[in-house]
């Protein structure tokens, strides 16, 4: 009995303590790992400016972001694979309103690898990438790879390619498979595009973080991650041949080039794919990434907090993107988004 009383007192004390600590408003979000570095920076900076607002973002994958915002267990979601019509309908049925896609930054999926002895940027053609991920090209010294990389010494033995993909439902995967579906009919028919495809080969890592971790530790591996993960962790990543025939490396310029065409023809709901975009300098595996914001909010305080954040994100926020290797949104897109923010009730 005494023990129980003691427990009760402790619980009450803890409650009082944490309640007294901050009267802050906590806004919960979950989703893509692709933009996690920039989001966590943004939310941190925004919290510094607005001490009473806390945005708790959990980087659990785009699939989870879509699911949890549909269920209503988080206030907003984030994804790099836009919701398809079925998912939009499901949201409407469950939550009785629309969900809006807000592009935040532009990023790129890069092919990263860990091949002993190779420190340069390898050149990858679409056929090679599809072949590797389909499990048809299995060794690093395969002629198809060597052809595009003359002068590189690939190991002659112990050179089985270890493919690493995502184990969770991922927008990064969506971007990658979207690209592969565009450049390879075999991929399109056999696997298709989506956040959780049935991979023909490979190991799974959880989140961009997990894939990067696995690549770092596994010799002869190749995987796909968002650009910043490769850059921050100093692992080599290759160039990809774009639709105009040039081998392009992912960087701010090439990613922005890919978005340039789409900016003008941006659909009203902002759901667009820019993989394999035309343009001599365009990086072919680029993508927007989106925040998923419900159009109707029950909680007025949360709604205002989110609207405030979105406005900040489109203005000051865009200043933080380039240091983290994400490209800014094109001006036309920013203008369009500003108008949509006002429709959130």
């Amino acid at each position: 009995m005494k023990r129980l009383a003691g427990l009760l007192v402790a619980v009450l004390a803890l409650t009082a303590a944490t309640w007294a600590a901050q009267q802050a408003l906590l806004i919960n979000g979950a989703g893509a790992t692709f933009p996690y570095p920039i989001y966590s920076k943004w939310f941190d900076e925004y919290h510094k400016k607005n001490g009473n607002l806390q945005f708790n973002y959990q980087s659990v994958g785009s699939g989870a972001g879509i699911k949890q915002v549909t269920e209503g267990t988080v206030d907003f979601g984030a994804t790099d694979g836009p919701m398809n019509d079925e998912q939009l309908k499901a949201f409407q049925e469950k939550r009785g309103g629309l969900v809006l896609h807000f592009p935040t930054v532009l990023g790129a999926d890069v092919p990263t690898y860990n091949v002993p002895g190779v420190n340069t940027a390898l050149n990858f053609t679409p056929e090679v990438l599809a072949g590797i991920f389909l499990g048809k090209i299995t060794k690093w010294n395969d002629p198809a790879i060597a052809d595009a990389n003359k002068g590189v010494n690939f190991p002659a033995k112990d050179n089985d390619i270890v493919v690493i993909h995502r184990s969770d439902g991922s927008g990064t995967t969506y971007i990658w498979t979207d690209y592969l579906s565009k450049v390879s009919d075999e991929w399109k028919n056999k696997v298709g595009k989506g956040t959780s495809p049935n991979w023909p080969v490979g190991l799974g890592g959880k989140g961009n973080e997990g894939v990067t971790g696995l690549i770092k530790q596994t010799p002869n591996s190749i995987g796909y991650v968002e650009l910043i993960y490769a850059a921050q962790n100093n692992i080599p990543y290759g160039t990809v041949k774009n639709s105009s025939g040039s081998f392009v490396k992912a960087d701010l310029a090439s990613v922005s080039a890919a978005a340039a065409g789409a900016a003008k023809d941006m659909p009203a709901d902002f759901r667009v794919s820019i993989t394999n975009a035309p343009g001599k300098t365009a990086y072919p595996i680029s993508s927007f990434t989106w925040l998923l914001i419900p159009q109707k909010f029950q909680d007025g305080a949360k709604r205002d907090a989110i609207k405030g954040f979105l406005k900040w994100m489109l203005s000051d926020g865009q200043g933080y993107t380039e240091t983290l290797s994400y490209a800014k949104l094109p001006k036309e897109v920013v203008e369009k988004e500003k108008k949509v923010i006002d429709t959130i009730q």
Partner: protein
Amino acid sequence: MLTLTGVCALISVSVLFLILGYLVYNGGTSINWAFFTQLPKPVGETGGGMANAIVGTAKLLLTASLFGVPIGFFGGIYLAEFSGGATASIVRYSADLLNGVPSIVIGIFAYAMVVLPFKHFSTLAGAFALGLMMIPITLRSTEEFLNGVPRMLREGAMALGASKTRTIATVIVPAAYRGILTAILLALARVAGETAPLLFTAFGNRYWSEGWFQPTASLPVVIFNYAVSPYEDWHRQAWAAGLVLLGLVLIINILARTILSRGIAVPRS
């Protein structure tokens, strides 16, 4: 041949020291004041701490105990003192069944029962899941230790005119309390390290979690997330957190077993 068995024993025990040693070696240097008092920093920046995860784990454990211990304790009293035959068997069997449920399935159950109806991830949901896991151990141990109290104590109290309730409250439970306390501590230690059920109940939080209805960070989940990440700094913190968690669990275990071995006035049949 017999020396081989000794080698087996040695190998088995040395694993414990390997784990401890490795954690101390890798995590020891990272345990500093900042670790215990600061919040996590944004991705890619070094430093920061796990204060919210530590407090989160404490809140989860406390709440889980509030939920699981009374059910197990009073249920155990029922089994030992009031019930007979069929009812007792059913309750015992249910407890054993619950005990055998894999922790990830408990997580699914808690998600369906607490997260979905309330529409958010919360400390409460996580505590519910952990509390469920504490029930069977508490129940069976309470029953066992109560049954171990000698008949003489029981009958003596009755002879003096005490009612059954009073007998239980003032004679039997106090006689068995060491064993029961031990069981509660062991149950607590077991759920302290559970990660799977928290993945979709308590979820995670980079800030302080207020009250009981918000998601919260917890040590095991943070360890998991940091360990599979590519950031060296996060790995370092994962080791430190692992050391703290292991330390907590081991201390509770040692405490529990010492209590049991030292003061057991209850003869075991």
